[in-house]
């Protein structure tokens, strides 16, 4: 049920959100760049610590600790650092280490991600037929999507996607599912896939050949540790990201070429959902726990979303608009229900 506001209300709503953006932009400064730099420091220290424990340690305790540290490093790099820096959230600093051209530690190339995510997903958020993130082109997460027989097994394919999520992300901009369904030529697919194939080869080589070989006798545990750390990052990212737009109650839209700024904000608001949690949880999720604020203000540093959320909630209350949020358990449960329910024709 998409809420409606009158054109005047919509304009006022948009203006209030624009005011939040202007205020935050004017306030950006040392503490914001210090935050992202501490996050980057954490990523590197935990990576070196984790890998050192895996490479040089003996026994299950150092294996568990090393793998955990490496998983934490990959999660932080993927979520809080990679995703946010690639949005250009820190371009204002002028620091060449923080430009939007950042390349993350993931099989997805930065260029593919910037195109499929920054441009397509954020512009056409939740518009059926235009936002390819709705079910990632092969899952039916909303009854408004057309049912296909392949959807019957989607509870299983979703779980498979969770374990291999970085590959799903890496392949996403290639439009593989559409090409297989006959929507594009294989020549185009091959051309599009070049960057991905090269980067994926490097990622595989790094985690499953280079580092294990470097470890000598400890090669098997380094291999296993890297595999488990990647798996942990995949599942975590999948969980957070799927909670962003797929819980029940989140709206999907038809394309409106005359969408005003206020209406754009409204679509971003009701097309997204938040997850409640502690500060540590928010950081581990790359602040995608504040999916609503992220969709309203994708170019603002994500660490600002919690303070912005207070104001956004107040604005929603005043305009009588829904604000989708819940605990991780509740949101994940809701997503699971949607995937199961929509696997059958409605």
């Amino acid at each position, binding site marked *: 049920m998409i809420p409606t506001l009158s054109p005047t209300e919509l304009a006022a709503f948009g203006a209030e959100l624009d005011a939040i953006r202007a205020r935050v932009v004017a306030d950006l*400064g040392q*503490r914001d760049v210090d935050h992202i730099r501490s996050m980057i420091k954490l990523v590197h220290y935990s990576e070196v610590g984790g890998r050192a424990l895996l490479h040089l340690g003996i026994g299950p305790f150092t294996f568990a600790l090393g793998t955990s540290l490496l998983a934490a490093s990959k999660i932080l790099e993927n979520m809080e650092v990679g995703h946010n820096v690639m949005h250009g959230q820190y371009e204002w*600093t*002028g620091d*060449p280490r923080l*430009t939007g051209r950042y390349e*993350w530690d993931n099989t997805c190339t930065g260029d593919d991600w910037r195109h499929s995510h920054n441009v397509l997903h954020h*512009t056409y958020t939740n518009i059926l037929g235009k936002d390819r993130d709705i079910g990632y082109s092969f899952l039916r997460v909303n009854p408004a999507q057309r049912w296909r027989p392949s959807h019957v097994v989607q509870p299983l394919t979703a779980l498979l996607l969770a374990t291999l999520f970085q590959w799903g992300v890496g392949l996403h901009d290639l439009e593989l599912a559409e090409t297989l369904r006959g929507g594009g030529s294989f020549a185009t697919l091959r051309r599009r896939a070049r960057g991905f194939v090269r980067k994926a080869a490097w990622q595989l080589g790094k985690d499953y050949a280079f580092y294990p070989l470097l470890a000598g006798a400890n090669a098997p545990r380094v291999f296993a540790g890297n595999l488990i750390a990647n798996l942990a990052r995949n599942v975590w990212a999948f969980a957070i990201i799927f909670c962003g737009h797929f819980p029940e109650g989140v709206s999907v839209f038809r394309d409106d070429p005359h969408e005003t700024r206020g209406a754009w904000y409204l679509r971003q608001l009701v097309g997204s959902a938040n997850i409640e949690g502690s500060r540590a949880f928010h950081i581990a999720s790359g602040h995608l726990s504040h999916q609503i604020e992220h969709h309203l203000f*994708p170019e603002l540093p994500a660490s600002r979303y919690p303070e912005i959320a207070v104001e956004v909630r107040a604005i929603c209350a005043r305009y009588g608009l829904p604000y989708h949020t819940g605990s991780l358990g509740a949101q994940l449960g809701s997503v699971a229900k949607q995937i199961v329910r929509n696997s059958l024709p409605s």
Partner: protein
Amino acid sequence: MSLSSALAASPVPAALRRLFLDRAAEFWLGRLAPAHSLIERRARVALVLAETRDVKTFVLEPSRWPGHVAGQYVPVTVEIDGRRHTRCYSITTRTTPAGAPRIAIAVARVPGGKVSNFLHDHVHAGAIVTLGDPAGDFVLPDPTPPQIALIAGGSGVTPILALARELRHRNSALDLAIVHAARDDAAAAFATELAALADAPGARLVAHRGPLTVDALRAAIPDLARRAIYTCGPAGMMDVVSEAAAGAPVLRERFVATAPRAAAGPQPKARVYLTQARRTVALDGDGTLLEQLERAGERPAHGCRMGICNTCACTARGATRDLATGAASGEPDRTIHLCTSVAAGDDLELSL
């Protein structure tokens, strides 16, 4: 400028180097040796000397110094409240070879100036700054001209000092006249050193207090027109020099306000120099920079066309206004979004 574009080309594909080698190596180098970097030229501040109340010398120890020619300037970048700002300062050291361990710049405090005040108030020995490549053509030719006039006004003494030091080092038979104009004795930075440099056979210094006039200059250097003339100072003073030289060539070093004021009123039809394509484009002043560039036949990368996806981001020099916030800026080398910016000055430079 991205992490990888700042490094020399390498056989390893760009995306892979960007991800693995550059970032990890750069991070750890930054922790273990903060005065060094793979992607930019850093310098440690070795010493700060107060020359006058408003002028300070910063002695810098740069890594990978490419060498410079006396009279050139160097861009200096500092981070102020999270944001990088760059300004060009004249190097006061005489000509240095590549790998030189130390150079010096002199910074005059500009009222309301962001970078000069930050340097004066917050940058002390031990601090790290970032340097660009030395540049500029305010240099002495080789062989040294036999008769030279150096005329410095106010903070324009900084490149003149470098030339005087270089001339002293070259030690060739020289007829050198230096005129140092300053508001008063307290404001005359480097007066003592210039006097010492002029204390050589064939050299002399005339210290002038108050604004320099054509008559005073002609009296100080009667044969001005026969000399190789170098001048740096306020625009008015340099006009006086040109007039006194009566048609003889004068090499002027301009200190341009590096953060130009944005023009008020309707959008000007800007001339844009595209630094990567190396061509100039004339815009028609209608709509956003993205729209104007497209109508001029350019194909800049773009995405959402509404300021959120960052695809059209590029660095700019010259004044632009951001339509989303209404704020105008002329800060050099800042990032702008073409789809939400308009020109606010006549000349722009974009990294396209």
